[in-house]
C-alpha cells in the first residue's frame, strides 16, 4: 500500500494505491495552508480509509515544478514518513502526473501550471497509449513559447485561471481545466510500479524540481 501526497499547488491531493488499484483518494483545497493542515489531513484520510501507518509500504511524492514552499512541505513530510517507517520513497514530476488526466488522446497534450511572474511551467506528452510518454522535458517560460503547440492543435490541460488567455491569445481550441485533478493518484499508481521494481529515489538528499533559481 502506497500513500502519495501532492502539495505542489493550491490543492492537497492524497491517494492510497494497493496492487494497482486506487483504494482511496481525497482532494482538499487548503490554498496556501499546507504547512498547517498536512498532518491532520493525512491522519483523517488514513482513518477514513481504515489504513494505519504501519500498513504503508512506500511513500509517493510529486516532485515539482510548483510552489517552492508547497513542494518542500510535501517532501519534508514524505521524507519523515519514509524515514520513520523505514519504507522507500518514489516520485514523479507534477507535469507528468498531470498528463495522466488526459487519457487516450490522439493529439499531443500540453500540461501546464501557473509559475507566476508571467511564466508557465509546462511539458508536452503523447497520451495515446496506456501511460503518457514525454515529448519535452519540464520547462518554465513565458506563455508565448506554447504558441507553436497551440498552432499544432495540441490539447491544453491547465488551470482555469489561464484558460481564457490561452483561448484568446493563441486560439487554443481544446483547453481543459486541471484544477480538480488529483495529482496524487497517478503518482501513487506509478510509484507503486516503481517501488515493485525497486526503483526508489535516493531519499536523504532528494530535492524538489524547482526549474528556477
Amino acid at each position: 500500500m502506497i500513500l502519495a501526497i501532492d502539495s505542489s499547488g493550491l490543492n492537497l491531493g492524497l491517494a492510497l494505491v494497493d496492487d494497482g488499484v486506487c483504494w482511496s483518494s481525497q482532494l482538499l483545497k487548503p490554498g496556501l495552508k499546507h504547512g498547517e493542515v498536512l498532518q491532520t489531513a493525512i491522519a483523517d484520510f488514513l482513518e477514513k480509509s481504515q489504513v494505519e501507518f504501519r500498513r504503508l509500504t512506500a511513500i509517493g511524492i510529486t516532485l515539482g515544478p510548483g510552489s517552492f514552499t508547497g513542494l518542500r512541505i510535501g517532501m519534508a513530510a514524505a521524507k519523515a514518513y519514509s524515514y520513520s517507517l523505514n519504507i522507500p520513497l518514489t516520485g514523479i514530476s507534477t507535469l507528468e502526473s498531470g498528463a495522466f488526466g488526459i487519457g487516450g488522446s490522439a493529439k499531443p497534450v500540453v500540461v501546464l501550471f501557473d509559475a507566476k511572474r508571467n511564466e508557465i511551467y509546462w511539458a508536452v506528452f503523447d497520451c495515446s497509449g496506456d501511460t503518457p510518454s514525454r515529448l519535452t522535458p519540464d520547462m518554465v517560460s513565458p506563455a508565448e513559447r506554447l504558441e507553436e503547440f497551440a498552432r499544432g492543435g495540441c490539447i491544453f490541460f491547465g488551470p482555469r485561471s489561464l484558460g481564457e488567455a490561452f483561448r484568446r491569445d493563441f486560439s487554443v481550441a481544446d483547453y481543459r481545466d486541471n484544477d480538480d485533478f488529483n495529482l496524487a493518484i497517478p503518482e501513487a499508481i506509478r510509484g507503486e510500479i516503481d517501488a515493485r521494481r525497486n526503483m526508489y529515489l535516493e531519499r536523504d538528499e532528494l530535492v524538489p524540481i524547482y526549474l528556477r533559481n
Partner: protein
Amino acid sequence: MLILGIETSCDETAAAILTTPRTLLANVVYSQIIHQKYGGVVPELASREHIKRLVGVVDESLTRAGQQLSDIEGIAVTYGPGLVGALLVGLTFAKSLAQAANKPFIGINHIEGHIFSNYLESPECRPPFVALVVSGGHSSLFHVRAWGDYRLLGKTRDDAPGEAFDKVAKILGLSYPGGPAIQKAAENGNPKFFRFPRATMGKDSYEFSFSGLKTAVALYIKDKAPEFIREHLADICASFQESVCDILARKAIAACRDLRLERLSISGGVAMNKRLREMVEERADGIKVFKPSPLLCTDNAAMIAAAGGWHLERGERSPLNLNAVPYLQL
C-alpha cells in the same frame, strides 16, 4: 526522557539528542556555507539547503548518540521566530516524524531555546535571573521569573547586534559573517580610538537600537583615505565592537541591579563575542554570569531539545496543525 531536537529557523540545519534534563548525547549542526558569497542569508537558498540536509543531519545525530528513532520519547522543533520557509521544513519534518512514529511532539520558541542553552550547561543557572539574548536576528532582555515564564524587558527597535556586525563588516570590506570577522580584525586595535555613539534610548530604558551605530561607522569612514582605513582597521573595528558591547553589557547589568537579581544569562550568536563576555564579567560585581560554550551560542538543536524536554516532561504537547510563526514573540 530521550529527546530529539530539530532546528531550521535560519541558516543552520541542526539536530540533537538529549536525555533530560541536560545530558547531551549528540549535537549535529550543518552550517550552510552557500550564503557566504551573498554576504547574508538568502531565505530561498536556506530552505533549499534544509530540505536537502535535514534527513542526513537527523540520522547523524541518532548515530552519534547510539540511539534508534524508536528509542526517542519526544520530539521538539523550533516553530518561530525565523524565516518562514526555513522553519516549515524542520517543523513539517518533525510533525510528520512524530505522527508516523507516534511520539509526543512540541514546538519551541527559538528565543526560549537560546535561554535554555545556559540551562543545558549550568544547573546553577536557576530562575529568577536576567537573560540577554543577542544574535543576528535578536536582541532582547528578559526577566526569567521561572523556566517557562518570561517577561520581556526590552528589545531592539531596529537592527539586531549581529546584523550590525554583518553590516559594518560589509562597509569595511570584511567577510561574512561579520561577528567573527570584526572580532578578529579588532584583536590588536585600540577600542578608544574613536568613540562611536551609544544609543541608550532613555535613561531607564531596556530598549536597544543599532542602526544609528552602523550609520555612524559608514559616515566616519566616508571622508577617510583608504590608507587611513587600512592602517586603522583594527582600531575602527575595536571601537565599533566596544560600542556594541558597552550598550549590551550596560543594560544587562542595569536590569540585574534594578530587579535585584544575582544571576545573568547571556546567549545567542553574539554571546560568543570575547569582548562582550569580558566586559560583562568586568562589570558583574557580585552578579554571577552564565555564558554558553561557543557551539551552544550559535543556532543549534541541543538548546531546542533542552527546552522541549522541559516542556514535554510537564505534559505539554503541541497539536499537529502547529504552524510556523516567523515573528513569534516570547
